[in-house]
């Protein structure tokens, strides 16, 4: 059953990296259109929510202290960039490669196995999360310099590192839907019923009312929530904070679970017909 073997630790295998390189090469051909629009999205949100709403919103209370709204929302946008980039890359771009372009079918005629393709896609989506969180981090440095927010700039190099790891888990989550949706039109279900709620109930734009036990439980299960809180601790206090360990453990567990699920479901879709 070699071809069906799960590969939880094959992210560094040359075959997974070959798939990553293929996607990177395509991306570099179209980098202007592929990079700027998605990278700009969090900045548009920052302008709309952070700068637009800050005149109407009083200071927000976070961990027992008052924060200006712009300072509150800025770290959340980094988390949003990591989630948004990798989840949607795995949903749409991977689906197009798998279903319409049959790129994966071509690769499966080589030494690369399906588990490497899944890892390659996850690594690539994580790389995109790295690029976009880097871009947002640079933009935050700029708005800090303009005096619009007050952040601990010395932690900025850490943000893309957290972004890439979180991006792997989000991408593996997205690939599960890629494996099961019957057509690209059905992507509306994961996008509107899962992607958007995850992004909103994450302490990105507003504090989730965690005193409500149901909302609190959902927030605790939401990996973007923990990422957002960790990034806020970093950017506001300069330390990883109490959310880091839950984030690291839950993201690692989610990554392994989602990778295994995606490999199983994509195998079932492509190779059991």
């Amino acid at each position, binding site marked *: 059953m070699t*071809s069906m073997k799960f590969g939880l630790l094959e992210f560094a295998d040359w075959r997974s990296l070959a798939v990553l390189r293929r996607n990177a*090469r*395509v991306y570099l051909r179209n980098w202007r259109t592929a990079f700027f629009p998605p990278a700009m999205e969090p900045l548009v949100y920052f302008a709309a929510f952070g700068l637009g709403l800050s005149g109407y919103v009083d200071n927000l209370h976070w961990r027992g202290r008052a924060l200006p709204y712009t300072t509150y929302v800025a770290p959340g946008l980094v988390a949003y960039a990591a989630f948004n980039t990798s989840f949607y890359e795995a949903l749409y771009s991977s689906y197009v490669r798998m279903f319409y372009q*049959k*790129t994966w079918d*071509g690769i499966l*005629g080589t030494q690369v196995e399906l588990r490497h393709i899944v890892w390659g896609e996850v690594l690539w989506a994580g790389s995109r999360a790295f690029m976009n969180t880097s871009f947002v981090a640079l933009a935050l440095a700029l708005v800090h310099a303009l005096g619009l927010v007050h952040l601990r700039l010395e932690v900025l190099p850490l943000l893309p590192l957290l972004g890439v790891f979180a991006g792997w888990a989000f991408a593996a989550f997205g690939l599960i839907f890629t494996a099961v949706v019957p057509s690209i039109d059905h992507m509306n279900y994961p996008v509107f019923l899962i992607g958007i709620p995850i992004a909103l109930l994450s302490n990105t734009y507003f504090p989730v009312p965690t005193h409500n036990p149901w909302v609190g439980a959902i927030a605790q299960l939401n990996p973007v929530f923990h990422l957002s809180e960790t990034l806020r601790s970093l950017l506001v206090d300069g330390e990883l904070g109490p959310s880091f360990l839950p984030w690291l453990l839950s993201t690692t567990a989610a990554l392994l679970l989602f990778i295994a699920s995606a490999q199983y479901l994509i195998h079932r879709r492509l*190779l059991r017909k």
Partner: protein
Amino acid sequence: MSPELRSAATSDELSVIVRAEGLVKTYAGRRVVDQLSMSCAKGRILTLLGPNGAGKTTTLRMLYGLIEPDQGRVFYEGLELVKHRANIKRWVGVCTQDDTVDYDLSVVENLRVYAGYFRPKVESLETRIENLLQLFELQSYRDRSPRTLSGGYRQRLQLARSIVHSPRVLYLDEPTTGLDPSARVQVWELIHRLRGEGLSIILTTHYMEEAERLSDDLVVIDRGRSLSQGAPREVLGKLLGEHVVVVPPDSKARAEVEGWAERELEREPSVVLGELRIPLPAAKLAAFAAEFENAGFQVRPPNLDDLFLQLSKGSRSEQGLSLTSGEGRPT
């Protein structure tokens, strides 16, 4: 092949490059491939021939390791695929039935990126790519998107890509389906040339002319079972007999011939535009000629069209192709 791998294979096994034993594959309770065994000798073209749904593509996918058989084993030069998978997949090239050319890349990038999916790395890759572009007449399109190529040239690219790593065995799944006659002939010439360079090729087709022109050996598959394997003439003789009697539509003895066939033969004649085509062994031909001396019939050797018509009829009517001679029992 590494010394330890070579020592695992006997010298007899080395003359056969691919051998399958008792392959079985079931989908949704239906046996798509049923106890199929076959082998391909080095440097030859082996064709899997059968009607739609016969199990050709599923067999091919098991042979090159895309899917696992439920039962049975596949060997390459005596080495079992499941045990030496990573090494053996380096020897294999695959050209799928679907168009899997990478449309995100240019023609030359398709070759370069595809080569990156193999280890050990392709030696002198850029020289190899230039040679392939020349062989497949793709030089002038090297930096263009595959979208701008005609169907025939896209298939050339897919073929070139499948051998960029210099495989020992090339799998071609219906390589000319959808091509116009001119492009089809050009692909045949390329396949013929690759065989001439020592490549072993296993292909599927339902084009009889393609099978006749290209094949050194045939495996006839029907409902997942191998009916016969061998050289085309040998297979035809075994499955259909030595002759085909053709009775024209306007023959006055037509009704009598049909009655005779129903009594004497285990299968129905094929009917093509009203013309009866009756495959017969030599002994039956003498009896037929004696009874229908004035029926205006012609006798010719069987061809793959006759075989295919019989297979298709068998599939429709659920009658087995244990043809009249009784020699065509599933093997």
